[in-house]
Structure formats: C-alpha cells, structure tokens
C-alpha cells in the first residue's frame, strides 16, 4: 500500500504510487463535460470515477461537515464526497478526491481547505485531496497536469460544449422522443473510445470526432414549432449541476421552452484571460501573461472551427470569446474578476441579443460576486433592453422548491407572452 507523504504545509500528497493504487473520485459538476473529463483522466492512467449520486443523504452529510453558511456548491460537493466515502464502495484507504481550485477572490478558492477540514472531522484525514488548478496553487507528485492531459481535457470540454449546445437546440423539437438521448449515449461511447486510442492526440481525430458529432445531431429529425428560448447563467456550479439547481434544465424543457446554456469553456478562457489581464493592470510576470494569451488564442482557434461547423450545419453558433468580451462594454469593466465576473454579465447580454431575453440567473444563496455581476446588473440590462426578462434564483439546501418554481413559472409565462406577441 502506498505510503502517506506530506507536503510542507502539512497536507497529504497524492504520490505516484497512489496513482496506480488509488481510485480518484470526481464530483459531478457539469453533466455534459465531466463524463468526458473522467474518460480523459482514465486514459492517462488514473482510476477516476465520477460521483453521480444525488441522494438526499448527501445534503445531510454536507451540512454536517461544513459550515452552514458556506454556499451550496461547497456543501453539495463535500456532501457528495463524504457520502461516497461513508458508503464504502471503495477501500477508503485507497481513494483520493479531486476538486477544482480557481484561486480567485471569491470563497470558492477555499473549498479544498474546507473539504480537508470536513475530512478531518469525519476522521478520514488520510484521504488525499488533489487540487486541479491552473495557477500552480498546490502540486502533487502523482498528479501532474502534463500537456497531454491538458490536451485531452481540452477535447473533453470541446466535445462537451458541442453536445450540450446541439442537444439544447434539438431536443425540444425532436420528432421521435428520446432520439437525442440515444444519440448522446452513442457519442459518449465514442468519446470514451477516442481516448483509448493508441495515438489519442492527433488533431485530425479530434476534428473528425467533433464533425461527426455535429453531423449526427444534424441528422435527427425535427419539427420546428418555434418555442421561446430561456437562458441559464450564473455561478458556475449551480449553473451546470442538476444537483445544485434542482434540475433546472429539465424543469424548463418541461415547461416547453428551448434552453440555452452558454458553453463551459468560456469560463476557463475567462479564468486564464483574467490572470493575464491582472498582470497587465497590476503587475506580475510578463512571460506568464504571454503564455496565457497564447493559450486563449490557441483554444479559440479550435473552438472557432467547431463553431463554424455548427453554424454551417444550420444551428445557432455560440459567440466567440472575443465577441463575448466585447459585449460587456458599457455595462461592466472587464477587470471584474470575482467569481464569474464580467463573463456572467456578458453572457446575459449575449442571450438578450440572440433571441433569449428570458434568463434564469442562478446563484447560491449568499453568493458574493453575484450581488454585483448578476443581480447587480439586472437593472442596467433592463434599462438597455426592455425586453429582457431575467429572474434571479437563489439556491440553497434549505430553500423550498415551490418558491423557486413559482418565480421560474412567472418568468416562463412572461417569456411565452412576449414570444407570442412578437410573432403576432
């Protein structure tokens, strides 16, 4: 069994030996992407496993082991981990956890520390926690973010975003119910196989798979009875995670609208770009800035290719990162880097301008950045675009669903009314 080794600051390291022996548990944070990220990790030799449980029990565990005033993403992720560990599906001496650490000015950067505190309280402090970060916050000998893994993750995000974008545009209109879901299951298998290939990192293969995803979605038969579009923006966890937002995507689709969720990749680009921006504005290593700039440009090159293909295939293409950034002009400074920062505001503007003025702005109860970049911007957006129909919803483990649903229903009712009056 792997020996426990400690870093200078006292945390347990994830060693190379552990890489072979340990199962790495990954919390489900964004259902279209995380499956693929796990495939990518597995192909790099990690025994990664996605936590999909959404039992009611895990909320209880989260509450028990974390500060009650901590926001719902932390509570749910910690709950999900502890719940999984307690159920002892794995030998808990052969399990590690992985969690993303953004390093920004919001409390999310502290989740990893809170998770460790929770583990300690639960007498499982021997479970190593891996930080997945871009800023070099914590390092582990057994988990090195090598270029190959980075590239694989890049593919995962790209595929995930593509599938998500297309499914949202097709599922409400599919002739044969369930066609999209079936296709997605097929694609999931293809992506898994994609990573197992001997030479996973040829651009040609990535390109081909991406194109084939788009083509196969295009082949699904639809009947276009137009529906109003409703966008989902917000804090990154409750925006994407069905566990965090009480299955908002499904709720909305059941109400008969087309859901639009902006791509996850933009959040990563925003994180890199923010760092580059801060270096320029407040000082810091220039070299890092150039690397980040290059990274953003490189990723955008690949994303633009996909977006073009999406457009050519007759679908609505997501806007480019550059365009998105320019949209925030006049609303909020692009120096706002707390939480989702200007990106959240820009996504709302993009939605309003692209036929989805109906928006659910999701945030954990008590989320600080959202006071400013979410709720704080609604009035300005409304002044600028009177057709905007934005409802801010707070998510909390104690909040009653009916309350949320009632507000969403109001927004959806207005969406339908505006939609119908526009169509005459």
């Amino acid at each position: 069994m792997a020996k426990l080794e400690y870093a200078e600051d006292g945390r347990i390291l994830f060693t190379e030996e552990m890489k072979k022996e340990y199962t790495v548990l990954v919390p489900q944070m964004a259902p279209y992407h995380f499956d693929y990220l796990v495939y990518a990790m597995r192909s790099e030799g990690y025994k990664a496993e996605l936590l999909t449980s959404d039992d009611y029990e895990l909320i209880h565990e989260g509450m028990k082991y974390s500060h009650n005033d901590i926001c719902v993403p932390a509570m749910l992720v910690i709950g999900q981990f502890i719940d999984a560990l307690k159920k002892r599906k794995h030998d808990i001496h052969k399990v590690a956890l992985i969690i993303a650490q953004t390093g920004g000015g919001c409390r999310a950067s502290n989740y990893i520390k809170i998770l460790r505190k929770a583990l300690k309280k639960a007498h499982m402090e021997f479970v190593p926690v891996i930080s997945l970060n871009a800023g070099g916050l914590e390092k582990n000998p057994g988990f090195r973010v090598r270029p190959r893994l980075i590239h694989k993750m890049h593919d995962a995000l790209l595929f995930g975003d593509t599938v998500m974008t297309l499914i949202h545009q097709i599922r409400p209109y599919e002739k044969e119910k369930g066609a999209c879901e079936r296709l997605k299951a097929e694609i999931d298998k293809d992506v898994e196989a994609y990573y197992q290939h001997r030479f996973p990192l040829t651009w040609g293969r990535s390109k081909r798979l991406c194109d084939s995803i788009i083509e196969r979605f295009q082949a699904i038969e639809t009947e276009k009875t137009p529906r109003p579009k409703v966008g989902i923006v917000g804090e990154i966890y409750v925006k994407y995670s069905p566990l965090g937002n009480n299955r908002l995507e499904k709720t909305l689709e059941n109400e008969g609208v087309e859901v639009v969720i902006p791509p996850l990749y933009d959040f990563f680009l925003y994180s890199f770009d923010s760092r580059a921006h801060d270096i320029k504005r407040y000082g810091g290593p220039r070299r890092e800035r150039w690397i980040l700039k290059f990274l953003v440009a490189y990723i955008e090159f690949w994303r633009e290719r996909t977006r073009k293909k999406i457009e050519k295939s007759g679908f609505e293409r997501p806007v480019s990162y550059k365009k998105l950034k320019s949209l925030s002009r006049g609303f909020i400074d692009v120096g706002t880097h707390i939480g989702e920062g200007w990106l959240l505001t820009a996504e709302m503007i993009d939605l309003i301008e692209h036929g989805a003025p109906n928006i659910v702005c999701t945030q954990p109860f008590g989320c600080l950045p959202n006071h400013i970049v979410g709720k704080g911007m609604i009035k300005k957006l409304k002044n600028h675009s009177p057709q905007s129909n934005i409802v801010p919803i707070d998510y909390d483990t104690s909040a009653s669903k009916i309350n949320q649903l009632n507000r969403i229903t109001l927004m959806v009712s207005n969406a339908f009314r505006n939609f119908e009056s526009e169509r005459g």
Partner: protein
Amino acid sequence: MRMEKYRVGIDIGSTTIKAVVLDERDNIVHKTYDRHMSSISISLKAMFERLEERFGDIPMRFNFTGSAGLSLAKHIGAQFTQEVISATTALGHHVEGIDVCIELGGEDAKIIFFDGANIEQRMNGTCAGGTGAFIDQMASLLDTDAAGVNALAKNHKKLHDIASRCGVFAKSDIQPLLNQGARKEDIAASIYQSIVNQTVGGLSQGKKIRGKVAFLGGPLTFSSELRKRFIDYLNLEDVYTPENGEVFVAIGAALEANEAPLRIEEVIERIKAYRRRHKDTIRKTIEPLFGSEEEYEAFRKRHEKASLERIDVGAYKGNAYLGIDAGSTTTKMLLIGENEEILYEYYAHNRGNPVDVTRRALLKMYETLHEDIVIKKAFSTGYGEELIKNAFRLDGSEVETICHYNAAKYFDPEVNFVVDIGGQDMKCFKVRDGVITTIILNEACSSGCGSFVETFSESLGYEIKDFSRLALKSRAPVDLGSRCTVFMNSSVKQAQSEAAKTEDISAGLAMSVIKNALYKVIRAHDVKEEYGDRILVQGGTFLNDAVLRAFERETEVEVTRPAIAGLMGAFGAALLAREASQPANHSTLLDTEELENFSYDTRRATCRKCENLCALTVNIFGDGSRYISGNRCEKGAGIENGYDELPNLYLYKYDKVLSYRSDPDKDYQKTVGIPLVLNMYENIPFWQPFFEALDVRVVYSDRSSKKLYEEGQDSIPSDTICYPAKLVHGHMESLVRKNPDFIFYPNIPFNFNESPHADNHYNCPIVAHYPETVDANMNHLDLKNFLQPYLTLNDKKKFVAAAQKALAPHVNVTKTPLKKAFEAGMRSYEEFREDVQKEGERALAYAKENNLNTIVLAGRPYHIDPEVNHGIPKLIRSLNVVLVSEDAVNHLAHEDRLGVLNQWTYHTRLYDAAKAIKDMDRVNLVQLVSFGCGLDAITTDEVQHILEEHNKLYTQIKIDEISNLGAVNIRLRSLLSTMEKEADDHGEA
C-alpha cells in the same frame, strides 16, 4: 345558452384558498375565501362541493393560480396561471392608469410596475418570505390576532426601528422592545413599518413607487394601518384598493380561464385521485422518532428521573429563595426551600408586558405563602434581569449563562455541555474544570425556532402539547430544512401543498429545530466528541418530547432533561440567591402591599449624547425610581463617569480617519466627493493627502445613519448583501447633494500585501467591485462625473498610469505630480497604520497597568462606522473594558500556518490578531461579523480554531441593520464573567 358560461378562478396561496366564479359578463356570481389550515386538498374538495351545491354539476372553465396551486394544477391536469400574471390581468381589467401594484400574500411579496406596454414584475427573494405568516406570528407575540394588530396600530404615537431584512430579524428586534416595556400600539405600527421597509427595500430596486398604486392581497386588504404606513412612507396620493381585494388574484385567474371546460364532479374526482396518489409518493422524509411504543415508554421513564421534589407550601417552614428569569418571551419564577424543594413555580408568556406579569406572579406567590416562610434573597436573570431587579427591588441579578450552569450542575455535577433552547434564543456552553469555557449563542438567523413551533401549532389550532405528541407517532417525518424559520415556513407550506400529514410536519419541525441548533448554532458534526457526553438540555422547547428525542437521535447521546427544563434559569438564580444569603438579612423584595400599590409608567426618549441616538425606554416606578433601558453606554442612563479615559481603538480610529480634511480656508482648483464606505474607511488617509497634493478639495458623504440608509435603500439590487454595502447607496445620495466636481470611488481588487505569510491579498468581492453596482443601479443620480477606475496601490507606476487616465477629465496633470501625490498619500497611509498600531500597543499596556480586561474586537475597517457597529464599542467601554481593533495588534503575530487559504488582506488581519493575543492574559477576541458576509463562513471557523487551540474563548457577534443590543450584551457579559473567573483562578494559582 352555452353550457359553460361560468369561469372559475381558484387562488391557492400559502395559507388560504380563494375562489371566484364569473359569468359571461365578468360579474362575480360566487366567491369564497378560506384558510386551508393544514390540508389543501381537503379544503379544496370542500370548496368544490360547495360549488357543486350552488351550481350543480355543470361544466365550467377552471383556472388555478397561486404558489400552492402550481403542482396541484399540473397533477390534476388543469389550467394554471402564475399569480402575478393573474393579478396583472385582473388589474388591467378593472382599473385604468395603475402605475404600481403592491401585493402581499401569506408567503410572497410582489410588486408590478406598469409602464405603458412594458410591465415589470418582481417577487421577493427567498430570504424575505412570509409576510402574512410574519404578521400572524407577531400577532401572537402581542397576544392578539391579525385584526388586533391593526386595531393597536391605529393608536400608535411613535415608530421604532425594526429590522426589515426578514421576519426572523424583525422578531429579534421586537422581542426586546416588548421586554423593555414599549407600548404595544407603537410596536404594532412598527411591525407594519418594517413590512413597508422590507417591501420597498427588497423589491423596488431602483424603481420609484409613485403615481397610482394598487394594493392587493390579504394583509393589505384587511389592514387599513398597513396601507396607511405604505401611503405615509411613499407619500402616495392616489391609491386603489379593489373591492374584492382578497379574491382579486382569483378574479384574474377566472378572466384568464380559457381551456376546455370540466364538470365539477370530474374535478373533485381528480383531486381525490391526486390525494390518493400523493399519499403514496415518497417525499423527502427522515427516519421516525420512535420505532415502537416500547421505545417511547423507555425514553419517557428515563427522563422522569431528573426532577425536583414538589412539597406542600403549608407544611414548609423556614428560609426560601426566589429566582426570577425574565426571558425574552416568557417569565419564569421559582421559589425554593433550603433543600431545593419547589415551594412555588410560575411560567407564563410575557404577552408583551413582563413587569405586569411578574407583579401578578409575585402577588400570587405571596398568597400561597405563610408567615413561617422567610424569603431571604431574590435574584433575577435573563433578558429583563435589570428591569425586574429595579422594578421589584430584588437583591441581585446574574447573567443567564451563569445561572444556567449553576442549575445544570445541580442535576449533573459532571455536566460538560449545556444546551438551552428557549423560545427566541439558543444558548449552549461547554464546561471544563468547573468553568464555562465556550459559550455559543445563536445569531439572528437562528432565532425564534422554539417559538416558531409553538405559534405554528397554534395556527393549526393545536395546543403545543398535543402538537408535539402527534410527532411521536409520525412514521415519515418531512424534511423541512434548517436554515431559519422563514425557510422552514415556506418548506412547511410546500409540504402542506403536497398533502403531508400534520404529525409528519410536527416531527419534521422538531428535527429542523435540532438540526438548526446542531449544525448552524453549535456547528458540531459530533457533539459527543467535541463537547462531551454529559449533556444537559433545557429550555422550554425541550419540554417537547419530539424535540428532545430528535436531539438524542441526532447526537447519539442520552441526555439529561430536568422536569423543570423551562425553569432552569430561575432555578439557577434561586440557587445563587441562596448562596448569597446571609443569616441576618431579609430580601428587599417588594411586599404584598407595595405590589398592590405598584404602578409604573414608561416613556420613550432619545438620548442625544452622541451620534448613536439610542432610543431609550424610561420606566418610572411608583416610588419615583427610574430604570432606563435601550442605552448603549452609561451616558444614556444618566451616569457620567471616567470611562472616557479607556483606550478604545474603534472610537479612536473613527475620529482619526475623519480628521483627514482639506483646508477649509484654501482655494482648491477642484472638489472631489468621496463616499465614507467600506474600504474607504481604511484608505482615506491615502486619498485625502493624495488629492491635497493635486490641489483638490475632498468632501465626504454624510456620516452613516439609519436615515441615510433609508434614503438609498430603493436602489439596492440584492437584499441579501451585507449592511455596510447597502449603506453605500445612501452615501452616494448624500454625496451627490454636496455637488462636488466629481465623485471618486475606485475599484480596488487587490489590497496591500501586508503579511509575508499570506497566500494572496485580495479585497472581498463586494469591497473590490461595489462601485460597479453603484454605476449600474443609481443612474437616477447624475453619475456622469462618477469615476470608478480600477486601481492598485501596490505599484506606483501602474497606479500613476491608471490614475492619470482616470482623472484626466477633471484633473489634468502629468505623471510627475501624480507620482509625488502618490508618495504623499502612501506616507500618510503608512503613518496612519503605524499610529493605529502604536495606539494598540498603548491600549494593551494601559490595560496591563490598570489591571483591566481587554477585548480585541476583530472586524473590518468599515466596522468603525457607528451605524455599522451599532455602538458596540461604547457598550464595551461601559463595561470598563479596554477595546482594541484587529488592525492594531495584527502586526504582533509571527506565525504562518493556517488551515485555510489566506487570501484576503482584511481577513489576514483577523487571523493574525487571533494569533497575536494567544499568550496574552486577560485579553480576548470577539469577532464582529456582518450578516451576509460569505467570506466569514470561512474566517469564523478559522479564527475560532486558532483561539481554541490556545485555550482562548471564541465569541462572535453578528451585526446587520438590527440595532438591538440585548443579545450582544449577554454575549459580552458572559465572556467577561468567564474572564473574571479565569483571572481569579490565575491569581489564586
């Protein structure tokens, strides 16, 4: 004739079902309004049966509306229209030219703005729910009903400040007012005013409520005084209150009914099916409290043991000792004999008048006594200890925690953890070696859990005893969350609409109260391990067996619950009275005759001795003696003393910061306005000299006050943000009035890097970017001269470049003078920091020299604002304690290891301050936390951890717009009495 000439609108709200039948000419031919109590489907069925009686089983078009109708309508396949849409339709149909509509319901508040074709609808945030339910609860506090509150409010003379964030906070403000003897009439009107503030503050968000305003919903329809408060506060002239206001939304739904008609029988059938189906669906349920009848028996027997002997008073001769616990909702009294026999006990609701209740209780006590019983001493404790002591001439009083510990020790000498859940508050403390170490008191959010269960059971028509007995039988308790009673209330409503059984709700509530106590207040994942296994539980709420069981379940500890669980404070006070008695003396307690002639009057006054402007309640007793409450410091009580000498860093810093002023006699080329908000309190020593060097006069916004806050409150976009941030809006309003050439409020994402061991040096998201919120939400102000550049103070070159660009429209200078100005600013700022640190060191030395206790009040720079700290620094001074701020001692810390990511400068100071005092004697830290500060969820845990590692007490005070200092007082006095005890032990050892 068409078959379906009738359209029916059914509005199912959180507490009521309203139905309206319209004929083809839109006339109302039938309307009903019922409280649905616990079961919506039953009430609904009854309503439909009445409909059938009246109209026969004919087809009608049905349309449901209202929050509780949402899922029901879906399940029975009927039409549903969201309630705000219904209201909008009804308004559009009935009246023209409405500009704004305010609708208050049992659970939700809504505002609709009509602006031509553009209709904007808003609903309250999750936090501010339950208006109607709130009025019901407040009514029961005032010992009346909703109509009674209205009647009382008519005769009000004065309005009190009552927090408007939510019902829980408001209640925390009202309780002490009741205890201080404020007039019920004034309180009733103030309750309405707080609803007005909450609605305006939470929902208008920058839109002015003016023009023709419609009032809808139960509370606004039935309460003329609530309408009046809105009219007065908003200066409304044209108001529309519809004839059928209570069913108005149902009318809207009826107007919207356009789906296929249904026969009434059919709807009833579907409702029945819905009920049947719903019974079987699995809700979020938790384990039942008891597995079997035997389990309950064993449980009951076990708890019977902890009780005192009750004896016949007639047979008793000798000394007796009295304890009075003047709690927040109830008055408790216990007279014990020499061997702790119970001679007399009393427990009653204050019903808003604790003095009167106590007087009657004392008279009743005297009736039962005879002359062979001598009351040797009488002590009081609890919220109203001082008032009662002064009113009835008791011999002494003691902080409630100490009383509780004394009482607990009696039942279990080895007790190491005491948990008290009263009606309003929770108190817990850990005991180590006979000394209370950690004291945990709930903060505002967790208030009122105990009394919530009680008022809720009353609202269902149950006695609390019967209600709790129901819970014991529950097989599938409903999970109702644990954040606070506002959230619980809305979860209950949801459960009711899903046809949950009352017994399951009762058990669920018991669990929620306990979970709130364990995970929110005590914050222990394993009480046994962290606090000990000899636990005593007390407080009226634990007399509810369901709550007791829930506690044992959740902690897995068999606890002691004395039969006098509700009287433990009084018992402790009586024990202390006995300890303090001397053979020769009798108690000075008023005798029967004096009690009978007892009269007292209360007057309200405002203390004008400083900017806190404390609202005083002056109690004047029959013998001419006075007791003043509501004051923060001794000055309000009319006592002048020498405490002004005591070093007090908060007062020192506030004066110091405001002393950075431009020269009044000098001619400057320009004037800049700087708001006195958030990080500006820290950075003014930089900005004023900076602008001075550029020949710019600096004017500040007015000092913070409640009034200033109210001026800006309608542009606050988020009701859950912290109070210091909300105040920014008022400051901006006041600054614009001063008409400076430009207003300067920069975004500063990165703070100074003060501590080499910190991981980063961010400002908190709110501090860093609030200027953006001002810009986006205050466009009614002329903000074209509002500068909100992004700046760093860490890099001269970067600063100069950015400042030059930002200031260019108003102050056009080259880089060199800017550099000089920056240097002047930095010099001044550094001097300021050094000065504060020196004053901190002087304070510590002073305390040592004079043998005084010191409290490090650890907050943020903006906590020096008296409107934010509510005069707590003065309160501390009046306790004869030296006060030091976190930024005056943080430089004394040397360690670095932390369990959290140390990435915010102001918070790094907190950690460092905690480390700095770890080895100092008679120095303790109290953390000041603003409600809504998400970062403090992290910092409080860590600061507590640092302190406890070094055997220091951790005390937290959560502040918001609430200005009630009762709870703060208890916290501080408990802390001090423990400090004294420790100092004594230290002296002896």
